[in-house]
């Protein structure tokens, strides 16, 4: 079970990675770093945790090519950098680390993506969290609105009590990057469920229409592929308050992926799926049948869309009958639709007709 580690534990875990390289050189072999294969072919369902985790397939990154060798050297620089932060009680963003690497000479990163990936690699092999490494993401946390109350420790170290309906403006409560207990405590709520929404336009539409109060729910804006902290806070609210989570997205292959990462865990972060995923969440729409049933304005699937759908057909997270049905139906239709396409029937259609009907099927309205 993923959890926060002490500074000593974190250092020790990192030293194991360094020792693997060192020992190989001592033995007269090329240094290596062993890490799980991070593709859909190496994720499996963990019965105990109810989420998808990496399987047993490992890949060995060895220093026989220049690219891999540079990766190892970079990993060493990152370890050293994290140790320095741990000792100094500092933290940095991944982007800051990317710029700091400018001074690492041959170990410098070629792109921000490389530094992000390497931070993830280290998480995976050490079983530590990014938070243990004192590395923050750039990514924006989500926005939340609804009658729920939490406590956040501010920069001065004081706890602030915030109600996400009464104490916030129209943009709602901004979820910080760290949502662990040391930073946020969930206090109380008076809602029946949480609805996660893909687009800002739809989030604002529901707020303007007073949907959160009318249907007693907390609304959460995902901002596309949700950040770790967004997924983490959904997970905490769902578990600690025992609330159902429904997910309202566009009707296209990419939205299916967003849902899979919320419900089952993302392939990239499968090492901490049990910490981020909310297995009890439900996909509300837009489904492939919605496009037909509501006669929604739609676009043709692009070549990339079709490729993505076909890839999903063989993704273990979409192995169940309902998903196979939806994916095949979308392929047959050859169409996709946006959340906002519901506006075809007027601005209130989504809150007065569509959502009540869909929630009704789930017994939530």
């Amino acid at each position, binding site marked *: 079970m993923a959890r926060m580690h002490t500074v000593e534990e974190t250092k020790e875990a990192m030293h194991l990675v360094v020792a693997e*390289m060192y020992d190989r050189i001592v033995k*007269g072999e090329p240094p290596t770093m062993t890490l799980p294969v991070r593709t859909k072919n190496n994720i499996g369902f963990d019965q105990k945790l109810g989420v998808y985790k990496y399987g047993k397939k490992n890949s060995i990154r060895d220093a026989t*090519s220049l690219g891999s*060798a540079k990766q190892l*050297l970079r990993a060493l620089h990152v370890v050293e950098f994290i140790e320095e932060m741990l000792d100094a009680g500092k933290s940095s963003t991944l982007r800051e680390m990317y710029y700091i690497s400018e001074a690492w000479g041959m170990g410098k990163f070629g792109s921000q993506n490389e530094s992000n990936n390497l931070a993830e690699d280290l998480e995976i092999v050490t079983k530590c969290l990014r938070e243990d490494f004192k590395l923050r993401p750039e990514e924006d946390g989500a926005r939340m609105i609804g009658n729920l109350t939490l406590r956040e420790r501010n920069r001065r170290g004081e706890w602030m009590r915030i109600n996400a309906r009464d104490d916030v403006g129209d943009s709602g409560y901004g979820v910080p990057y760290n949502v662990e207990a040391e930073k946020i405590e969930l206090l109380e709520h008076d809602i029946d469920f949480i609805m996660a929404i893909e687009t800002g336009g739809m989030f604002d539409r529901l707020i303007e229409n007073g949907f959160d109060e009318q249907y007693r729910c907390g609304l959460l804006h995902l901002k596309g592929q949700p950040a770790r902290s967004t997924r983490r806070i959904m997970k905490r609210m769902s578990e600690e308050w025992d609330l159902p989570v429904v997910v309202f997205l566009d009707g296209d292959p990419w939205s299916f992926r967003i849902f899979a990462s919320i419900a089952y865990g993302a392939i990239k972060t499968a090492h901490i799926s049990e910490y981020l995923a909310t297995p009890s969440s439900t996909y509300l729409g837009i489904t492939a049948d919605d496009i037909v049933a509501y006669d929604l304005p739609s676009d043709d699937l692009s070549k990339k869309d079709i490729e993505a759908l076909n890839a999903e057909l063989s993704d273990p997270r979409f192995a169940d009958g309902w998903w196979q049905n939806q994916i095949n139906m979308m392929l047959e239709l050859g169409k996709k639709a946006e959340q906002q396409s519901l506006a075809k029937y007027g601005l209130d259609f989504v809150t007065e007709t569509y959502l009540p009907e869909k929630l009704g099927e789930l017994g939530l309205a």
Partner: protein
Amino acid sequence: MAGIAQKLASNQKQVAISEFFEKNKHFLGFDSQARSLITAVKEAVDNALDACEEARILPTIRIQITKLDTKKDIIQLVVEDNGPGIPQKSIEKVFGQLLFGSRFHAIRQSRGQQGIGITGVVMYCQLTTGRTTHVRSKIATEPTAAVVDIGLDTRKNKATKANAGREIWYNDDGSAKEHGTEVTAQMKAKYQKGRQSVWQYLRMTSIVNPHAEIIFTDPEGEVHHWTRVTERLPTKVEGIKPHPHGIELGQLQRMLAESTDLNLNHFLLNNFSGVTNRARKELCQAAEIEGTRKIKSIKGDDIRHLLEAFQGERLFNGMPVKLLKPPTNCLSPIEEMLIKKGLSKTIDSRYVTTLTRVPSVTQGNPFQIEVGLIFGGNLPGDKPVEVLRFANRVPLMYQQGGCLLTKAIESVDWRQYGLDQAGGKGVPKGPAAILVHLASTNVQFTSEAKEALADNGEVMEEARKAMLEMGRGLRKHLEKKKKMAKTKEKFELINDILPAIAEKSAQILDRPVPGLAGSITKIMSAVISETTTEWNKETKQTDVEITLFNYTSRARAYTILATWPEKAGAGMVGNDRGGRKEALGVWAWKLDALQPGEQVKIHYSLRGLERNDWNETEVFFRGSQDVIGATKMDEKFLEEIRRQEKIVEEAGIEEPTEGEGQTPQSIEESEPVSEPTVAPPTGQRTLFGGES
């Protein structure tokens, strides 16, 4: 042979010159205003190059084009050279003569003329602007230069001269000019840019005349300067006697008519190349004519029989008479190294390869193909490659598609050599330029316009072979580049990254820095060679260093071979490891077994070269384990080199003549092989109406 000239000579009395010019302007090179300017530049520059070559002077040629009247398209062209100059008396002949000297009949490689040479330019100027052409020329032995205006009296069909005089010729810097010629002409013409332009003509001329300095000032005042990159003048070409295989009936008749030889035996031995004493006897027998017959008595059927014997239609002992090939010392190829220099100075790129084939013969005419390929650098990658065609050092700028040389390029599937080519046909695409030069005593064009070479199986085959060989070179280069990049990466890995990993991990774990030898062997697990070829400014030599590393766990033994420019006259010095010559331009070193982790270096320097003559040494190996950075020796490659070498050697050795050391033989020896003995036809006239 001298089609235009003879036509002109015979028609001269009846047809006005202006009319003749108008009728024939397309093959005289004056069919459009743009082309007229190029032709004018070409005639003047060719004359300058020829004169300098003859006088063994390194040419410096200045060309200036000025727009005099933009509305009426009047352009002034000035071409100045540092040639030997023309004596006052001869200026009129050179610029006003229609039928010019023995050129039309000499069997040798010459730049040749476009139509009627510089006289055509004088005519064109007169006809389009009414103005005369100003000539200034100085020879070294006279203190002053001769000046004269040459024009054309269209009513009298005669050249005119005016304002003849003498003056002191000063250079721009105030010094007196020693020798040279300057032509100032005014004509109706258009100055254009691009592929068919004066600029392109001069650029191409500069490529194949690396010994020339060419300075061109265009109408906008921009100065284009193509520098001299070699002090070596083209070899002086020897004239040769015609070869029986290339003789036509008319020519044979004329030769007989002009012969002063004692009899047929002497005629055959004295006037032809490739005819040995044995061949002489056999030709007479095949033609069924007594060798002792007087020349005057050989007429009608006899001449035809003789020609048939020449051409192998009449047999001796059931076989065509075997003739020696004509000598090839009448050809003046540019030579690989100089083409390379010419290309490099003109086109900016990374890789240049050039190739001069061994001379060959078609229909009694010696010819030689030279090719060059330049690749990479700033050349555009998505356009057809630039085709640079030349015949006897003269750029061919028009009718690219219909030219034999282009067809030779198109006949190669360039895709296998690293260039794009739709369907493996047509001119390939890619960041490259391809040069083809045909040197021959008899260049066959598709038309009088002399812009495209006519089809010829043997020439085509030679050109194609040259392309294929060059293509293989390009492919090798590209493969090598890829391999070198990979090797470079590996070295970076073991020299920089791996030590950093060892150091950093030791530091983090607070343990001693481990040794790297074992890891390095495992990572490389190969034998690697690194070669540097660098110009040494101080010694003026090219230093070559070949290093061989054994990064495997076993001892390895190799023979290393390297290419060097032996053919170009380079010498190898400081080669401490000795070794031996393996073939022309290939040296070999047999090395002792190299232990794991060991390295060995081969050093040597090349002298007698100039900077950039030799930038890439090709390294081969013989041995079982692959060497990264070197190519396994293909023994066929060596055989080919040895074969070519043999051809060159044999060409320099006369075939031994069999027995019969009698008179005809000694005649052959006593008569030096020099200028063609065929006299120019009678009836030559100049525009001045004078005798030749």
